[in-house]
């Protein structure tokens, strides 16, 4: 699904990612852990194509294609999805309008029929229910005045609607209490499938109790310093990052 080879990335002329190699197979769930500032969000932005992230070396293949040649919206239509660490507030655009525009834009790009208002509404309600996303939230401008938990649930709703092939979840657990964490991780687990890969970025191990990964990578200062199975997350919980990072 995703092949990253010796990826070097500059932000504002400063090297942030310093040679990342990572391979995520179809249906696999990988966790990326690491201290603040290690480059986790940078990696997620590079994958989504955000401006200002300059690839100086290396390559990224997504479904066998060079990701760099694709526009931001092409990547999305090809099934790449990033759940933002800090979802953006968009005053004046209701969540509902946004969801419909996004879904139909992707369907159109893939040559599928666009959904009419009735079919779309039915689909949204079906997906919103389990995530506790209320009608009221759908009518409000996107993310404006949403609590931290509401923003994260709205991100997962987008993911559920858009049904990506590769989802990158950037600190989807941050700022969530136990109940909200459960709702969000149940939502994510419901989307696990043999055709869908996920990269779960997190600072803490607790999310990985709910979303159990196939592999865990530790990112530090722009490099992957360790890779292991799900037990690596527990080890980190015990020892903290300091030991591993220094190792």
């Amino acid at each position, binding site marked *: 699904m995703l092949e990253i080879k010796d990826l070097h990335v500059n932000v504002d002329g400063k090297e942030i990612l310093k040679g990342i190699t990572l391979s995520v197979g179809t249906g696999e769930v990988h966790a990326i852990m690491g201290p603040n500032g290690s480059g986790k969000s940078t990696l997620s932005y590079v994958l989504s194509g955000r401006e200002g992230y300059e690839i100086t070396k290396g390559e990224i293949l997504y479904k066998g294609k060079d990701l760099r040649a694709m526009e931001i919206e092409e990547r999305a239509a090809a099934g790449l999805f990033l759940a933002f660490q800090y979802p953006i507030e968009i005053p004046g655009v209701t969540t509902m309008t946004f969801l419909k525009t996004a879904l139909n834009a992707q369907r159109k790009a893939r040559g599928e029929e666009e959904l009419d208002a009735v079919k779309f509404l039915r689909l949204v309600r079906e997906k919103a229910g389990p995530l506790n996303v209320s009608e009221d939230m759908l009518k409000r401008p996107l993310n404006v005045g949403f609590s931290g938990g509401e923003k994260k649930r709205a991100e997962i709703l987008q993911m559920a609607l*858009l049904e990506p092939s590769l989802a990158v979840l950037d600190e989807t657990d941050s700022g969530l209490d136990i109940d909200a964490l459960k709702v969000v991780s149940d939502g994510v687990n419901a989307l696990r499938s043999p055709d869908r890969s996920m990269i779960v970025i997190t600072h803490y191990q607790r999310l990985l109790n709910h979303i159990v990964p196939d592999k865990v990578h530790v990112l530090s200062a722009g490099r992957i310093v360790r890779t292991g199975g799900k037990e690596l997350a527990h080890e980190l919980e015990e020892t903290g990052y300091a030991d591993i990072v220094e190792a």
Partner: protein
Amino acid sequence: MTASIEEQYLEAFSALAPQGDPAWLLARRRMARDIFAAAGFPHRRVEAWRYTDLRRALAKEGYVPAQRYDGPLAYDVETVGPGAAAFGDVERHMLVCVNGFFRPDLSSADLPDGVSIKPLSEAVKETGFEDFLTTDDNLHPVNALNSALMQDGLVIRVEAGKDAGKPLHMVHVTTSAGASAAHMRHVIALEEDAKLCLLETHLGQGGAGYLANHVTETHLGEGAALTHIKLQDEAKDALHVAANNLRLAANAKYYGFVLALGARLSRHETDAVFKGEGAHADMHGALALRGKQLGDISTYVDHAVPGCSSNAHVKSVLDEEATGVFQGRVLVAKDAQKTDGRQLSNALLLSRDAGMNAKPELEIYADDVQCAHGSTIGELDGTALFYLRSRGIDEATARSLLIRAFLDEVLETIPLDGVKQDIGSQIDVWFRASALAGSETR
């Protein structure tokens, strides 16, 4: 010695000897002509026009009087034509003017009970009509020019207590290809508790460098309510200069909205004076401009009496090398306690070469008032664009979503759904044209 552009202009219009003007009008015209000749066209050094140099914009062309045209139009103003049939789905009465002259043959005949419509040339013959022409020619040289040269216009009156019902739709079409000028004077007079919704569209044939000058005298009696929505979509080389002089008696209500899309240079000025307590005026608008267009929405509000409220909110979307202007002043007289006066300008610049000049001012002599004014200038939020695109929304659509979201705040104030939707789709059409132009240069 060469003649000034003002002398040349007046000379070109001297042949317009108006037939059968009453004595008061002849005297008024003479005086107005002298005022204009002394003051000249407004330019950068005239404070109220400092960003909108009309004199410079006019200097290039030798203007001649617009010619009355009685033939058929190239399109049916009611359903097709430029402006994408604005308000085509709104049930309304049509009032059509071509090249500055009212065309009853193209207009609706079945007017609602209590509503009367006359061309200016007829109305000026009625005794007492001069009382409706309260615009002070001394304050504004273009209004003086209009008083000196006005030929025709619509005089719309609604009797006390009558609700005109369906909107009246004034359509102004210019067919002349050259540098012609029309000076129209309209009067909208609502007696006590009368109600009217007036729509206006201004259209012209592509590229024509004409000048359309309108002065509208609006008199709202006690408790009267006027909704006044205007779409300015003049030809791209045209000049459009409109002044709306608004007088509100006690408890009168005015809702005004203008969308300016067309013309090389346009100005929509509202001068509101509160004459009685408890009155309210909204003077909102939007500019959507590109190329080298300049659009000016300015509002001057005189809170002469206590207990009135006014609100002017203008949103501007400026692409390429376009310039937006918002000037305005809220003046609160010493005795005008409990005044609520607001002015706000928000501009969105879509290009580095676009610019906005906003200068809202307050002049307050009373102490118990609520007044606010402000202006913001910003760009499209790059982070928001990225977020939308990361969900698969193409860049043009993402931009239009954000631009519409920006404008919707003022569009939402339009009190008629059909009209609101039409104004919205005019903006979408504008945006699509802009996006196309953008993708060609990119």
